[in-house]
């Protein structure tokens, strides 16, 4: 495993009542470079828990002297976003896993259509810096709610001019994807980051209009949802690990000292796929096939059934 990065919280900006921006700098040495679309896992020292949440890096990839993330306060938060909003102060130290990228812009695209929903704007801030440097053709569609989830809207409007389209739900404006994806030039690719409903909508609309799957890219940024408590048993050692309702199986394993390779912590990348031998699984990922699900699960989001014991092949 890559060593963790020790960072200091340099600045905190409240962008909207729901969105806070954090700037991190290395405690010593330099931060690794990153590519547009990368994310880091922020290790959150929530008392009694070992929480790690993934956040997109939104700075300019050509200036990696600091990292910036923006965090939306989640209503159904398991504590991660609330901790960042309420506990973390400027000058505090945190640990990050090094950047990883599951959402890079296509090198083949001749035109990039970026679609953001709310806090899903974050990876595109890095995209825009990169695409502007390449002189690439692009447009940004931002579905948001004015005054709540419209972080960076004013500066984007000024910076991008006609390439920027905001749809403020508070003002009754809706993003019509049928319109946004119609008549785009032949080499276009579309990228979407936002709530699952928006991702589904982009994928369905693109498919209906005849976009090949390879032109459609998405990143779901939602973290694990809470569930019911259950017990995980390790087949090799017989060790039993209690998984509370507000903890993911991956986090429970990590707390018990079992390291499982992982990247997205959101059920999309497949890195943490773990075989199981016995038990009933509540699959919540969007990666494994039905067949794979009979013998494996993704512990970053999926869980054993309430009160049951799940035997992992670990």
């Amino acid at each position, binding site marked *: 495993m890559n060593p963790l990065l020790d960072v200091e919280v340099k600045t905190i900006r409240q962008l909207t009542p729901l969105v806070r921006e954090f700037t991190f700098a290395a405690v010593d040495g330099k931060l690794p470079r990153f590519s547009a679309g990368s994310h880091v896992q922020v290790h959150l020292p929530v008392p009694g828990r070992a929480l790690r949440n993934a956040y997109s890096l939104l700075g300019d990839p050509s200036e990696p002297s600091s990292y910036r993330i923006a965090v939306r306060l989640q209503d159904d938060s398991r504590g991660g976003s609330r901790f960042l909003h309420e506990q973390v102060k400027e000058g505090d130290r945190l640990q990050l896993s090094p950047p990883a990228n599951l959402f890079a812009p296509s090198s083949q695209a001749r035109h990039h259509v970026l679609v953001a929903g709310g806090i899903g704007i974050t990876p595109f801030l890095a995209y825009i810096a990169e695409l502007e440097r390449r002189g690439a053709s692009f447009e940004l569609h931002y579905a948001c709610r004015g005054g709540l989830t419209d972080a960076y809207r004013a500066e984007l409007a000024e910076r991008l001019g006609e390439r920027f389209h905001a749809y403020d739900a508070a003002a009754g404006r809706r993003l019509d994807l049928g319109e946004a994806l119609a008549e785009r*030039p032949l080499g276009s690719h579309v990228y979407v980051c936002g709530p699952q409903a928006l991702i589904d909508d982009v994928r369905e609309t693109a498919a209906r209009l005849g976009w090949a799957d390879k032109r459609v890219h998405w990143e779901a940024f939602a973290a694990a949802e809470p569930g019911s408590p259950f017990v995980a048993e390790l087949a090799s050692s017989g060790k039993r690990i209690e998984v509370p309702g507000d903890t993911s199986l991956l986090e429970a394993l990590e707390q018990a000292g079992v390291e499982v390779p992982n990247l997205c912590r959101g059920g999309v990348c497949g890195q943490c796929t773990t075989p199981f031998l016995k038990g009933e699984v509540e699959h919540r990922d969007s990666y494994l096939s039905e067949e794979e699900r009979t013998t494996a699960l993704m512990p970053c989001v999926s869980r054993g059934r309430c009160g049951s014991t799940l035997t992992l092949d670990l």
Partner: protein
Amino acid sequence: MSHEAAGTMASKPVYAPLPETILPASRRLLVVQNATLQAAADLHERLQSAGQPLTMLSLQGDAGQGCNDPQMLETKLRDLLSWSPVGTRLYVCGDESFLWQVSALARNAGLLGEEIELIKTGERREMYCVHCSTRQSIGAEGETVCTGCGVHLLVRDHFSQRLGAYMGVCIDPDHPHGEDKA
């Protein structure tokens, strides 16, 4: 592409007689080598019944849009693709040489392989001599003589999608040169 839809990763392309399912599209382009062939007519009818706008170009045998000249067909197709949106699907019907020439042009214009369906008619195909880089049109035969270097060649099932051609390699290690140089 039809040979990918068939689930094979083998080098030699496998072609479906007609697209099994007509995939969703905003617009369809049909490019046929010879519009008088039954396969071309069947395909045209299938695509027309799918409902989206359909444009047909043909090299031979169509009174309306016939080009009669490969150069003119290329120019017309390039022009069509230059203002076509994403969601355009291209259907190409003809012999293997024709299919891959049109496919290469379309991919250069920004279409992806997944957005192109190839429907093969006839037996003509391209061969590329790996010794002298000469390309020539051949039929179904498994051996031939290179028109460039005169070497007796085995036509392999090794197909290059980039070149749109089968690889021809010297069939007899004891005769590595053409007859006139032996």
